[in-house]
């Protein structure tokens, strides 16, 4: 895991600041949709019970990946949602 190279092979011509300008609202929107969807599920019948569903547990674990500051977040995210290799 976390096995992707650290240096890009096709370097980004844009600076980090410029990329943040381009993608900030997309990132904000993706997280907001998740927050609103959790609210929607909770408002429905059996709303609070459904929060014990392991799929929601995985989503919460995925948020930890965003918080822990390690690289290769997308890769870690997908491994979290994968069957184990045994």
């Amino acid at each position, binding site marked *: 895991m976390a*096995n*992707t*190279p650290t240096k*890009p*092979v*096709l*370097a*980004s*011509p*844009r600076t980090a600041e410029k*990329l943040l300008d*381009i*993608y900030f609202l*997309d990132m904000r929107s993706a997280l907001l949709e998740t927050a609103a969807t959790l609210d929607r599920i909770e408002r429905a019948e059996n709303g609070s019970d459904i929060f014990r569903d392991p799929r929601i547990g995985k989503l919460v674990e995925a948020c930890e990946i965003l918080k822990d500051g390690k690289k*290769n977040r*997308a*890769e870690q*995210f*997908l*491994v979290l*949602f*994968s*069957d*184990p*290799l*045994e």
Partner: protein
Amino acid sequence: MKVIEPHIHMIARTTQDYERMVRMHTVACCEPAFWAGYDRTSSQAFFDYFTHISEFEPTRAAQYQIEHYCWICINPKEADDLVLAREVISFIPEFLHKPTVLGIGEIGLNLNTVNEMTIFQEQVELALKYEQLIWIHTPHLKDKLKGTRMMLDYLKGHGKVNPEKVCFDHCEEHTLKMIVDAGFWAAMTIYPVTKNSPPRVVDALETYGIDHMLVDASGDWGPSDPGTLHDAIFEMKKRGHKEEHMETVFYNNPCYFLGQCKKFRPSPSLPKEKAWAV
């Protein structure tokens, strides 16, 4: 800039998609044999399907100046029935000599079962016997990591498989490195919700480079769109990448991989050593 769509199921698309593709400078598309959205009831249904994608679909595409190629196989979703799968395998060689058939595909795994793996291996042997290229479907979602590993380990340990002649499709961040490191071709599918988005595809190109990489839209009967390929080109533009690198990924690379089959006619604009030097 010319574009080649390496993976799309045109049997499930309208003629308007051909119109849109030609307007977006798509010059060729490739249709791997796959599941129809329902299980077929006999091997004869596969025979008819192979006839459709190798005979009728090229004539439909030609009306839009697009060259249509295909791949033939028993797909992984219907490979769990060994008797049916072997009946289908028995007549695959009849199709391999047709002028637009590029090889064996999309073979692979769906739920990573023992039977699926058996049929995968039998079709790898078929490809080797008839000197065919191989196009591999990797499983979806939670099954992808394990299934990709199973097929990769098998092919690496086989001894007679040339990685240059094999492309793993539907790769994502957690499967790319193992495929690229082993020298195989990797294709990324832009497919809403369950596979890649255009920005993640460009992330992978930045991370792993542009050699041995393909991008496809895998349009079929589910929510999908051949235009997403062009969304990825726009994404590269947005990030300031050079047009020559876009051409490498979306036109020349398909020519390098698919051109290993002499029947594939589009030719690259540059030798690959030049195109891959970034």
